[in-house]
């Protein structure tokens, strides 16, 4: 199914925004301007965007510790995200959450999650709400290869099948959980077969190819929206940065990273595909690159200028009402 020029431009714009966002926070972190732990999504942009381009604002997603890309793809305010990561009061979460806990319920983003396997049961709950309220929305649970081994993920899959809930389990297999290879940690090295064992259709696709991701996601979203129950999509992806910023990636083989960055860059692949097929001009994409770069730079500037939260903020937002 052919995407319109507008759709293609928007998809590229979102992927580029993620890439630029991550490269920028990486530099700012190295410069000592960002506190805490940072897990960057660069390299996996096609996964988040290819899925979320199929979702409406009423649909919801749940994410992981590596959540920036999912947030941007689902439409979180990028400036608010940047302020959050800088720990500012003007951040999307008032500076209380940080990189690992960015959420925006208003756009259907249920939150990044610091607990591996924390999100699948929550996405199942969102799908349960959709089924109960019959509002036609679907939920997407993003996980990694590592978190696909967590018991909570398996329980979420079984419950989703039992209750036939409109939820899609996306497993972005970027080959590693921290420094441990997926081929070691997943007994079968085949998360799709494992998901299928729980009784849902499961497909494995090339997560560096936006178009393959988009298609598989479209089918899964239609399947779920039609009330035909959960589905699983395993997206084979690559991670350009370390597990967290500061990780020297000693577990990478000789030249492994260069090869990934040269041959498995979903942005390069997208650009080549659309320009060769004459769907878009290089100039269109260059224009997006430029204006995304300016936008992200502006976000950093405003974040640095923004105020930190203060004593008055410490004990608010724990309860709606306590005493």
């Amino acid at each position, binding site marked *: 199914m052919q995407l319109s020029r507008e759709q293609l431009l928007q998809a590229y714009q979102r992927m580029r925004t993620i890439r630029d966002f991550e490269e920028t926070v990486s530099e700012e972190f190295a410069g000592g301007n960002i506190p805490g732990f940072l897990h960057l999504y660069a390299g996996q942009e096609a996964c988040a965007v290819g899925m979320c381009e199929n979702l409406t604002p009423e649909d919801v997603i749940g994410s992981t510790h590596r959540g920036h890309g999912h947030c941007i793809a689902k439409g979180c305010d990028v400036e608010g995200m940047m302020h959050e990561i800088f720990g500012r009061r003007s951040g999307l979460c008032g500076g209380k959450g940080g990189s690992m806990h960015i959420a925006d*319920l208003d756009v259907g983003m249920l939150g990044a999650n610091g607990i591996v396997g924390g999100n699948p*049961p929550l*996405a199942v709950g*969102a799908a349960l709400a959709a089924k109960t309220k019959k509002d036609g929305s679907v939920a997407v649970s993003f996980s990694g290869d590592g978190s696909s081994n967590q018991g909570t993920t398996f*329980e979420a899959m079984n419950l989703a099948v039992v209750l036939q809930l409109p939820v899609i389990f996306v497993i972005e297999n970027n080959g590693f959980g921290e420094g441990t290879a997926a081929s070691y940690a997943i007994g079968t090295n085949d998360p799709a077969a494992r998901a299928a064992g729980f009784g849902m259709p499961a497909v494995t696709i090339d997560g560096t190819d936006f178009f393959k991701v988009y298609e598989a996601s479209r089918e899964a979203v239609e399947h779920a929206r039609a009330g035909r129950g959960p589905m699983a999509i395993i997206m084979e992806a690559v991670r350009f940065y370390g597990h967290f910023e500061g990780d020297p990636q000693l577990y990478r083989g000789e030249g492994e990273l260069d090869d990934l960055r040269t041959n498995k860059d979903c942005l390069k692949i997208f650009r080549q595909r659309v320009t060769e097929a004459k769907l878009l001009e290089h100039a269109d994409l260059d224009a997006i690159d430029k204006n995304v770069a300016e936008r992200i730079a502006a976000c950093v500037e405003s974040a640095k200028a923004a105020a930190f939260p203060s004593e008055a903020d410490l004990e608010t*937002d724990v*309860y709606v009402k306590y005493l």
Partner: protein
Amino acid sequence: MPKQTVREAINQALRQEMGRDENVIVIGEDVSGGAGSDGQRDAYGGVYGVTKGLFGLYGEERVIDTPITESAIMGAAAGAALRGLRPVAELMFVDFLGVCFDQIYNQAAKFRYMFGGKATTPMVIRSMIGAGVSAAAQHSQTLYPMFTMVPGLKVVLPSNAYDAKGLLIQAIRDNDPVIFLEHKLVYDTAMDVPDEAYTIPFGEAAIPREGDDVTIVAFSHMVNHAITVADKLKGEGISVEVVDPRTTSPLDEDTILESVENTGRLVVVDESPPRCNMATDIAALVSSQAFDSLEAAIELVTCAHTPVPFSPALEQLYLPTPEKIEAAVRKTLKG
């Protein structure tokens, strides 16, 4: 006013709230029972029959039986709450928190703060606590200190039928995650309970017995032991005030402090092992904020520092009893 047991009062609260608000759902293991069987649906209504009849009224879309999968149950309730439902999730025995605690204490409890006040998670977790029926080490714990210490959670401990109904309706209408803990030994205790719906605000202690000589602060079923002791000692002219905080988070600190300022003596009764529990919590409150009123050492009546033993002979030695509470009261009066 009709008499109701705690079991009936909780069941009525659930019926009434589900009738009032279609966003209220009940989810858990065998909350109806019989799913997929050739026999009756609603075969259980919860292992102690507390949710019996809800299935017939509200059906499988709102009374949801699940596999044995507590992490998914709690997570599903939390996720659904973020999306506008008001789930009442059942954790059959509180002892099972170990297989699903993350979804409660790291997820539901922390959403609102981590997300800068943007999330609302109106969910209730009903669970069963307490020893006294020889259910042994993994089916007899209270564990409310583990919930009480978690910022973001509210913790409710009804000791009688009237409170159980009003506090549960409040819990369901409350917009924060609430842990509602039902003691096995109070289910069959009965008292006058209005048929209409009513709420009891959190953080407001009850004072089932007023007195001037000694304050006993007790929780859940221990309140009933405290009342027994107060009534007995009254005969001897010892005037014991019994304070039932009803919720440990929020805690009605003022009522406790005022009572101790008046009596000058404090006994705390907590059906938990002795360390880092509600007995220590209340002792710390009073010794830091009402120290000058204290006329004697604080007495703590708790369980032993052991798992809950199976044999009835040991279980009674393990538990706080009216005898142990009475001895503590007499001790503090000497001190």
